[in-house]
């Protein structure tokens, strides 16, 4: 059995009387994991507790099968952490600072300097490597932090909001860099972000956190693929009731879609084919404006996960329509 990259058991993190994480249980086998959640959900607290920067009030954290309490220093050699806040050595050049950080992880001096040059070239800061980080722009600082996280060649990379404050072009560049590191070099990735497109692009597994609680753990495929064979149907609003009646007569279920005039048609046992939808529209005498597979966006899945525990309170665009 292969060792899991990360295992959390009843993890509780408290800041004074405020509880940031309420007994989180989850495990991550490897690949790229996205920690999703609104601001203040507990994503950064989870990363920081895994690193040992915050002491868990209860529970345990295991990285590569080893408890972070007993093997913290050893494990942190395998972890690259890119914090949300700026984080650099003042008064030294960018490359000297990175070389120094690599040395604290056991790199010989010459190798550390060479490695610092390499990672700065990789993130596109090769020409700026002798400047002090304090003179960098926001985008350059983000890339510097990525370089700092990679300089000691970690086996798992923790990224906390890596695209914060970046313009669209820089954001795509940053995501491209992370994608290359994760995809081509087998470095496991744990990405905390509230930017869903970033997670959707990079991750194959998602943990959804809200108010310090784990709302859902699933693969990206599970989250974004709707019920088997479901179809998203756009019809004229006035014919919606008749269309729904005909569909229900055929044993199908109809939900309201996110957009106006959109219905999601599913069957508990069968795959809903486009031909079935066309037949229903003919039967109901309703003009059909569009049919497509009802694969959900990560945003849909994320909002559903957050709303999961509040099902008793009806959500206007999610309650069963008819």
């Amino acid at each position, binding site marked *: 059995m292969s060792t899991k990259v990360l295992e959390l058991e009843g993890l509780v993190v408290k800041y004074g009387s405020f509880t940031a994480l309420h007994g989180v249980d989850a495990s991550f086998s490897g690949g790229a994991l996205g920690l999703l959640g609104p601001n203040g959900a507990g994503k950064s607290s989870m990363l920081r507790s895994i*690193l*040992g*920067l*915050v*002491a868990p009030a209860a529970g345990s954290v295991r990285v590569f099968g080893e408890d972070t309490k007993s093997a*913290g*220093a*050893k494990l*942190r*050699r395998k*972890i690259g*952490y890119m*914090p949300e*806040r*700026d*984080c*650099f*050595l*003042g*008064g*030294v050049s960018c490359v000297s600072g990175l070389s*120094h*950080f690599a*040395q*604290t*992880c*056991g*790199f*010989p001096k010459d*190798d550390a300097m060479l*490695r610092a*040059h*390499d*990672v700065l*070239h*990789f993130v*596109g800061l*090769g020409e700026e490597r002798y400047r002090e*980080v*304090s003179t960098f722009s926001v985008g350059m600082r983000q890339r510097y932090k990525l370089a*700092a996280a*990679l300089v*000691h*060649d970690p086996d798992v990379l923790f990224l906390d909001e890596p695209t914060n404050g970046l313009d669209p072009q820089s954001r795509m560049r940053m995501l491209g860099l992370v994608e*290359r*590191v994760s995809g*081509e*070099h087998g470095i496991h990735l744990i990405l905390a972000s509230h930017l869903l497109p970033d997670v959707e692009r990079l991750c194959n597994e998602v943990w959804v956190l809200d108010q310090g609680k784990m709302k859902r753990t699933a693969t990206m495929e599970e989250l974004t693929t709707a019920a088997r064979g479901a179809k998203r149907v756009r019809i004229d609003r006035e014919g919606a009731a008749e269309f729904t009646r005909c569909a229900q007569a055929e044993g199908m279920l109809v939900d309201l879609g996110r957009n106006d005039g959109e219905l999601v048609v599913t069957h508990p046992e069968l795959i809903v084919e486009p031909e079935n939808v066309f037949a229903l529209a003919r039967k109901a005498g309703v003009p059909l404006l569009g049919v497509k597979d009802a694969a959900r966006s990560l945003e849909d899945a994320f909002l559903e996960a957050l709303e999961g525990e509040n099902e008793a309170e009806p959500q206007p665009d999610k309650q069963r329509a008819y």
Partner: protein
Amino acid sequence: MAFRAAEYERYSGERTNRPSWLPIAFGTIQRGWKSKWVRRVSVLSLVLGFGMMVMMYMINQVVPEWRSITEQAAKHAGQPAFKVDTSYYLMLIQIFVRPILLPLALLFGYDLIASDMRTNALEAYFSRPVTPIGYLTGRTLAFVSFLMLATFGPFFLVWLADIATAPNDEHFAAISHVPIGLFFALLLISLMISLMVQAVTSLTKSATWSNLVFVVIFLFFGVMGPVLYEITDHQQNMMAFSIINVTKVICGTFLGVDFQANGDHMNATPGAAFGVAIGVSAVSFLVIMRGLRKRSLV
């Protein structure tokens, strides 16, 4: 150098098992040496020691009997006899402590931890295999090494010159314990000063405020010690308020100088001086660790 593609590569070399505080110590020394004024003061101190060494050698070459001549001259002038003994070394070391060790400590350490706190570098350290105690060890080791280099270094050169030009074995016997005594005295003083400077900077997180606090500690309390001594009918322990006097008493104790016999009463007792040094070091250590643990609980 071969062209290197801008592509990420896994590291295939060997990693060392050396403790993480070692690169921190070396990094701190490099950082300190980059400061123009730290370089100036350190070099000035070493040059001063070297100059005194050369001067003693040259005087000894020109006037081999200079020691007895100076003694007789002082006697004729009705002054206490001048001797190169432990009291002379105590006077000499005070030259290095006051204008060199204290300013150097401020120049070197005022922004050491405060800078790391401002730039959030502590988070970068503690997300790596660096513990707060390792971090503090590395920083303090470098700090103390610098202070020792600038104080014990030149002093040792003078002692070597003195030994090399010693008129007889008796002189060597009288001062043979001096380097060991002063090494430990300066080690304790440097440790106290370096921890205190780091503790203050970790509290103020500002170079300006740190320096203002040191002005109060060194100057205000330096004046308050003698004032309290006088108004409390010569309570010796009141002199322990003065850090300068504490350093003098510590050095004197390690050198075996008897202040009372020399008529120098205005000093703290050795117990009070050592108590202040150890107490300040311990409190500073706790303050720093508290500040570091707030940012890391590893």
